[in-house]
């Protein structure tokens, strides 16, 4: 790890004040990780700017001394996107946590990056408005982190993800310059779409210091239903058939048996632990339309051999079901010390073959993989319970996931649907993009950040993993 020039430290402390510029061991440890298992690295300094101007000044100092800067929100991402692998400055933005403006004429909300996603929901819903993206970490995560990682959530199928709700950004470039992109505009084709480019850029291009978000009217009613299946494939086929019947539910979540059991052990809500799979299906909108859709969905479930369908009868009951689903990942972590969660994503018509392939691969490598996820948009979360201290097993886990990634791409999918590339998916990025695609992205990175100061070591791997060749015949 590179030692931070002491002169730079002095300048940063003078700029931010001792209280917000920390290099004591406690602070370095506390900002050495995020929610990604097996990834940790100490920064040299933790900086907590209070506004855009301070962020800009920090970047001017950092670029003068060529110090890496890793921007961080709540540290809940799962791709090691905020682990400071090269050392340098961890730039914590959670002091910038004000909601700046609710514009009810234009239906936009302007916020600083450190606002919690859940607080945005509460704030706008009180006014009858709606910000749909709802990543499972939303009680903890910040909007800045959501934008940087292009977060998804349970409502992605019907409403899209974070990228569909960011209208404009203020951002600080590596040299300290401040840019503004987009605006309170539904139409804007003035040049390249820098707003969309920054969404999901994982802190590698610029530091997002303000965002203008699109709001929509809050749906009048929401209903949630559970459908239980004794057969896994039947459940997966139901997902495709609901969509094929021209119904777009607000949520269409898939939970396999392993996941059901642990979620139920965590929160006793009466999920049937003997079922092979459960679909959690939600719809929102006008009362009449919602009732009609839910009836039709229930019928489709029954036609596809659902053992039982159960409609949540109260808001509290519905919220319980959704909370249980949101807790799936963390609940799985009770089984073994280490939990590795991936988010291989396929076109939704391919959900059934993908789930089958995951089961096959888990058996092949003798690892335990539970699968849940946003089946409606093809975004699955194969989750492996293991123990980081068992190196032989961890190696088999890696092989299994490699094969899962390869399978997802083969089915027309991607290596990550909503978690990001960071460190952990970087070696596989080329599988998805091809060499030309990677080169183009590297050129974009160079155009923004010629000295490679922003979140170095992420997105682009030193070496691409050798592509796994899937040959089913050879397995048999």
């Amino acid at each position: 790890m590179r030692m931070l020039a002491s002169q730079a430290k002095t300048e940063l402390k003078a700029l931010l004040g001792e209280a917000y510029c920390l290099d004591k061991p406690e602070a370095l440890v506390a900002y050495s990780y995020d929610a990604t298992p097996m990834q940790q690295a100490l920064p040299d300094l933790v900086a907590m700017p209070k506004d855009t101007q301070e962020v800009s000044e920090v970047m001017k100092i950092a670029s003068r001394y060529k110090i890496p800067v890793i921007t961080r929100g709540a540290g809940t991402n799962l791709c090691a996107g905020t682990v400071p692998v090269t050392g340098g400055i961890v730039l914590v933005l959670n002091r910038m946590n004000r909601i700046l403006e609710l514009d009810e004429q234009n239906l936009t909300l302007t916020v600083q990056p450190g606002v919690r996603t859940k607080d945005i929901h509460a704030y706008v819903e009180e006014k009858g408005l709606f910000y749909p993206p709802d990543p499972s970490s939303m009680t903890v995560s910040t909007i800045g982190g959501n934008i940087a990682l292009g977060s998804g959530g349970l409502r992605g199928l019907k409403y899209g993800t974070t990228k569909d709700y960011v209208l404009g950004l203020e951002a600080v470039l590596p040299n300290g310059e401040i840019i503004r992109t987009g605006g309170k505009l539904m139409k804007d084709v003035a040049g390249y779409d820098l707003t969309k480019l920054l969404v999901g850029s994982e802190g590698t291009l610029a530091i997002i210091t303000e965002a203008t978000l699109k709001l929509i009217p809050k749906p009048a009613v929401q209903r949630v239903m559970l459908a239980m299946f004794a057969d896994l494939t039947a459940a997966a086929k139901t997902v495709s058939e609901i969509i094929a019947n021209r119904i777009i539910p607000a949520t269409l979540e898939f939970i396999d048996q392993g996941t059901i059991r642990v979620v139920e052990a965590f929160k006793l809500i009466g999920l049937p632990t003997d079922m092979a799979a459960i679909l959690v299906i939600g719809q929102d909108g006008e009362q009449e339309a919602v009732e009609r859709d839910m009836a039709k969905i229930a019928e489709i479930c029954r036609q596809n051999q659902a053992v039982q369908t159960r409609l949540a009868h109260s808001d509290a009951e519905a919220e319980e079901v959704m909370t249980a689903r949101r807790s799936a990942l963390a609940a799985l972590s009770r089984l073994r010390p280490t939990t590795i969660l991936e988010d291989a994503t396929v076109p939704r018509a391919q959900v059934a073959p993908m789930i089958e392939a995951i089961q096959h691969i888990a058996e092949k490598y003798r690892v335990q993989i539970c699968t849940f996820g946003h089946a409606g948009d093809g975004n699955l979360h194969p989750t492996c319970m293991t123990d980081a201290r068992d190196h032989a097993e961890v190696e088999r886990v890696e092989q299994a996931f490699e094969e899962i990634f390869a399978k997802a791409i083969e089915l027309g999918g991607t290596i990550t649907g909503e978690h990001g590339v960071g460190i952990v998916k970087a070696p596989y990025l080329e599988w998805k993009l091809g060499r030309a695609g990677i080169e183009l992205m590297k050129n974009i990175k160079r155009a923004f950040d010629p000295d490679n100061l922003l979140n170095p070591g992420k997105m682009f791997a030193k070496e691409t993993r050798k592509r796994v060749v899937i040959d089913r015949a050879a397995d048999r």
Partner: protein
Amino acid sequence: MQLTDKLKQTLDYEELSNCMRCGFCQPACPTFRETGYEAASPRGRIALMKAVADGLMEPDQDFLDQMSLCLGCRACEPVCPAGVHYGQLLEQTREAIAETVRHPWWVRMIRSIVFTHLLPHQHRLYRAGRLLRFYQRSGLQKLVRRFKLLKLLPAHLREMEAILPEGNGTPLTEAVGTFVPAEGERRGRVGMFRGCIMDVMFHDTNVNTVKLLARAGYDVVIPPEQTCCGALHAHSGERPQARELAKRNIRAFQAAEVDYIASNAGGCGALLQEYDMLLEDDREWREAAGWFASRVRDISELLLDAGGVTPLAPIQRRITYQGSCHLRNGMHVTTQPQRLLQAIPGAEYVPLFEADRCCGSAGIYNLVQPQMAGRLLQEKMEHVSRTKADILATSNPGCLLQMKAGIHRAGLEGRMTAVHLVDLLAEACREKE
């Protein structure tokens, strides 16, 4: 032994590894909300403990301060999807610190007086209670206040002096005997855990607890050999002493052959219920500790199991409730006290916003961390005053004192009183008679 080595020995590494760093604990953590600082959150503190165990950092002064800043309210536990026993990890850390770090002489003196010479000796506590009563009744207190002698104390201690309830030197067993038979149909045999300070400072609450239990149909035994629960010891790192106290209590209640052990203090009850974990490495005592732990109930549970407290005289007042953290997060008693309050005829129950958030009392936290405790109390009192309640009920003596201090500080005296849930119910009971 050095602190680093001691920590490696006391910390349960498996449990440290179970934290997956999802961060779901952070919104529930009072010190994280106040500071926004990762190290001041449960995820951060576990990372610090693990970093020391992994040799990534030395347990320096910042580390010690961070472990002291934690309230130990355990609000992080019910929201932890991975089920990490944070409270256990914190106590293991504090145990290692207590055994290896030399406190300043005056802290050592206070700890020695309180933990070794006072709490484990019930008769000394009664004597202290009589002294306090003498101080309060003889005019000495007035004299001290007139000559402003209290100015010598820091502000938060002055405040505590002002709201201290009247001391009492009469043991519960002298007031009601060691056995009170059930009234009406008999539901079971309950051993009353009287607590140490509880029996001196809140003597009447204990008497009322016994009366309510008997009225609800329980035979009540009060084993005189029982002692302090050891919670303050365990939270402060004196786990070996806590284990010795636990053994004395287990012996006393086993001899009394009880079906349940009743607690009216969430702070005590939570540790009593975790005696099995406290003694899990002790082969000789493990089974008996399990017997004891499985029988511990909060008074509100026992009363509700018996169908609530009836009949009650109406209380035409507005009532709100501030929960005890250890009652909720340790004993998992979440709604019972509120249900008892809601059943009081004539009373209007108003829920307190964030009643599940620590008031800052946290054992002796408000004495040793007055700054953070003061911030939490101030926020709490803002929510409390918004309820416009006449009565603020609690179910733990530490919380009760803190709420009294809060009312005093917020200038709400005369408009609002803080009471123990048991005393409120007992009063309504008496008036009916």
